């Protein structure tokens, strides 16, 4: 064959030779192969399909966790902060006090240790505050919305509405905004300036907070008729009574009252030997606060350590600070001496069958009474909502306001969220309920349809291609020394450095979400995957044979295989 003679061949040209002598020396098609679309061999097709990472799915506030971890990997902390702020106006707060269900769900926990999402969130929240970052607000709207209660649910609802352009006023009974964040959680876990700065950010969107106005006392719910919608998020601020003989004695106090008084700088009467009754977060907060006031503290809990509802880190830190735990013990009666607490009589318990909560039910063991030499008893066995201010027309359910999944109550224009409605008892659930209600209020006021909920496809550990990952230790959270901690209410956890945040974020599998790792692009044996703008990928189905190598190799299950619809062109 004469070299170079292929120039000028056309697709439709029939190639003939005068003789075999003119044929090329090797088996090569002289016509172009552009006519041969090998994609026709395919009966399955790969499609890029982001799925739901388990962390995102587990976050009650609906944070796009994988997204901000991915941005953090690249050191894009500002953009990561903006991404959190789409869902949660209080990342610095949540990065400190959230019980991080995202980490329990993290697929990495099956591999080595879960991502320290909580610590990264705190870093990003603090980064936003330090850099004085601001979120954008849409054009102002004429409708006004009232929010009752400036706790996490109320703040979240107000924030999301304000971003949509609504004028929002929050009415708060306490002298400060923040709800439980301000009067419940001790400062050593959540420094006041952090909370104040994040609230100030919300106010900078035009949200007005009127403190010291108690609903039903200073103002009635019906007085809010100048607003086109009302969101009620008054929380649960009443402690459940201990209900044992002698409970009226001086020296029997309640966890929420103690924490509120300490937080507001009021005087607190407390002895040197303290028993805290309960195993939840309020019990831990009360016990650790009492220790900081110089008391010897014993926590009395009727089940065992495994059943304690408090965040495990809180329990661990409490133990570090010298707090004693009496498990499988319940208070029987207060030993009263001169109308004051002279001791506490307890009874041993044993664990029976699991109850409705799934935890094993404590059963008293007769004849096992024993005494505790204490002068103060702090009850922390539960909390309840004050519903006395509610007008008729708002239906109730299990000690709270009845709502649907969007926070809609039985009374038109009235919405509710947070502990008073859901009783969920966590900051992040309250924030999530505030956001959901804000969307419902927007839909109610604007007539816009809410986005349909979809069934998420959550990525399981088995769907991760572990060949692409190596074990890497979780970055430790630096903590203040015990002696320094016990001297007052200084913050215990010191926060990640930028370097620790980068290292920690690198551990993220990015479950189910393409992070442009190029694996599919490199592996495609038909070179049928193109890289657009050096970032996004495009499958050329004219040449993709449907071998599935890209799907098999994808480290994070972000490509799916679909049956080819032969009748579909």
């Amino acid at each position, binding site marked *: 064959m004469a070299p170079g003679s292929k120039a000028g061949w056309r697709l439709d040209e029939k190639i003939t030779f005068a003789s075999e002598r003119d044929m090329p*020396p*090797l088996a090569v098609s002289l016509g172009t192969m552009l006519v041969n679309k090998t994609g026709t061999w395919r009966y399955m097709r790969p499609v890029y399909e982001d799925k739901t990472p388990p962390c995102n799915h587990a976050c009650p506030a609906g944070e796009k966790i994988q997204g901000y971890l991915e941005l953090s990997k690249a050191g894009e902390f500002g953009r990561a902060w903006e991404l959190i702020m789409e869902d949660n106006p209080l990342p610095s707060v949540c990065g400190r006090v959230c019980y991080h269900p995202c980490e329990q769900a993290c697929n990495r926990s099956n591999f080595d240790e879960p991502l320290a999402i909580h610590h990264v969130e705190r870093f990003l929240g603090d980064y936003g505050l330090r850099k004085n970052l601001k979120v954008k607000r849409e054009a102002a709207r004429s409708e006004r919305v009232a929010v009752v209660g400036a706790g996490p649910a109320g703040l979240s609802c107000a924030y999301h509405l304000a971003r949509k352009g609504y004028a929002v006023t929050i009415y708060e009974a306490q002298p400060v905004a923040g709800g439980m964040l301000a009067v419940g959680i001790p400062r050593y876990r959540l420094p006041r300036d952090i909370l104040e700065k994040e609230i100030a950010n919300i106010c900078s969107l035009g949200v007005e907070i009127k403190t010291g106005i108690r609903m039903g006392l200073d103002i009635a719910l019906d007085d809010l008729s100048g607003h086109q919608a009302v969101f009620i998020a008054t929380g649960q601020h009443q402690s459940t009574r201990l209900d044992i003989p002698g409970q009226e004695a001086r020296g029997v106090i309640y966890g929420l009252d103690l924490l509120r008084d300490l937080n507001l700088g009021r005087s607190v009467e407390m002895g040197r030997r303290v028993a805290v009754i309960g195993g939840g977060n309020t019990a831990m907060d009360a016990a650790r606060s009492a220790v900081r006031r110089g008391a010897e503290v014993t926590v009395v809990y009727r089940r065992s350590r495994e059943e304690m509802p408090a965040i495990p880190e809180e329990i661990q830190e409490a133990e570090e600070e010298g707090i004693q735990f009496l498990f499988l013990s319940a208070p029987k009666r207060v030993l009263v001496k001169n109308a004051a607490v002279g001791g506490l009589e307890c009874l041993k318990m044993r664990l029976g069958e699991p109850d409705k909560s799934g935890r094993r039910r404590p059963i008293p063991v007769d004849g096992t009474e024993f005494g505790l030499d204490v002068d103060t008893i702090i009850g922390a066995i539960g909390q309840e909502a004050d519903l006395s201010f509610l007008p008729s027309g708002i239906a109730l359910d299990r000690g709270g306001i009845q709502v649907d999944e969007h926070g809609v109550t039985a009374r038109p224009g009235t919405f509710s969220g947070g502990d008073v409605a859901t009783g969920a008892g966590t900051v992040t659930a309250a924030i999530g309920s505030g956001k959901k209600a804000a969307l419902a209020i927007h839909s109610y006021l604007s007539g816009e349809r809410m986005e349909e909920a979809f069934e998420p496809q959550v990525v399981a550990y088995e769907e991760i291609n572990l060949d692409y990952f190596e074990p890497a230790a979780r970055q430790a959270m630096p903590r203040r020394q015990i002696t320094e901690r016990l001297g007052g209410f200084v913050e215990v956890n010191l926060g990640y450095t930028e370097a620790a945040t980068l290292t920690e974020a690198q551990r993220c599998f990015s479950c189910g979400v393409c992070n442009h790792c190029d694996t599919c692009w490199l592996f495609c044996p038909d070179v049928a995957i193109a890289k657009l703008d050096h970032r996004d990928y495009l499958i050329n189905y004219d040449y993709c044979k449907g071998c599935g190598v890209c799907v098999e190799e994808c480290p994070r299950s972000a490509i799916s295989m679909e049956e080819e619809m032969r009748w579909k062109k």
Partner: protein
Amino acid sequence: MEKVIIGNYAVSYGAQLARVQVIAAYPITPQTQIVEKLAEMCASGELNARFIPVESEHSAMASTIGAAATGARAFTATSSQGLALMHEMIHWAAASRLPIVMANVNRALGPGWSIWADQNDSLSQRDTGWLQFYCESNQEVLDTVLQGYRIAEQVMLPVMINLDGFLLSHTSEPVDIPDQALVDRYLPLARRDLILDPDDPHSFGGLVNPEHYMEMRYKMHQAQLQSKEVAREADAQFKAIFGRSYGSIEGYRLEGAELALVTSGTIASTSRVAVDRLREQGEKVGLLKIRMFRPFPGEEVGELLGGFKKVAVIDRNISFGHGGIFCQELKSALYNLLKRPQVYGYIAGLGGRDVTPQTILDIAELTACRDVPPAEADWIGVKV
């Protein structure tokens, strides 16, 4: 510049001077240092080539084929079991008419596991369509890599360069490393036709029906035959630029000789010593070294040996059930001559057994004492 280097490095320097663009190779004793050195050169930037680490020799040759198909100057090296594993791709490379150069360090095949010199590995690839050269010295190894590309790129057939395991691969000798500028003149890079090009896609290696398959094989055979002349020209040009030439065969002290020893590889250099000693003693003995095995230089062999009474062929290989492979080739080249010598076959040095000057002297003496060649080859020093 002269350097004292092992044969394996002579291969590496040859590939570097040839400015190979893609190397895909898998390590195997005694070849490993060839690709180690090339990998180092790629890493340090001394050689601007893409080094593809692969998981097997089959993939090494497949990758080399792919690279060569795009028009790149591609190189690989292997030995023994590795070459055997490549076998399917060895055929493919030749029938794809790709100018690949591969170094093969001759090593025995297992089992019995052996890492030492033996030519059965490369001679098993005799009928694949590759050109084959057998080298005697490290200098010849380097020079043949350069000549190999020049020949391959003209006849569009791959070239295999063979060197004896350890006897050359791990033995240091002074080697002249030619100037890059001179090599570039000898071996310019040129764009080829009919290459794999995403902008102009064609199908390669597809189905060929019975009407045309034979024609393609005929053309391959013609290219092999044509390469004799191309190799001659490449050797002459090499001499003009670098001052060295090797020929497809080389006669040593054949003038007036009555017995011609015929061999290849490092046994040839040992034989030179033996021939010198015999000549000193007045024996009329000379040597013919066969450097090019494919295409087989039959006419040249006939011209040189036609007048001899006796020829003794020493093979470091065995075609089981027949005899030494060079011996068979030689016999068939001489058979149709009007006047042809007696051919005595000897098998020696399999699996790296030492072939010393005394071994050669014994072969010469044995041949001299005989009047008629035995039906079977003699196995020198075999302990049975």
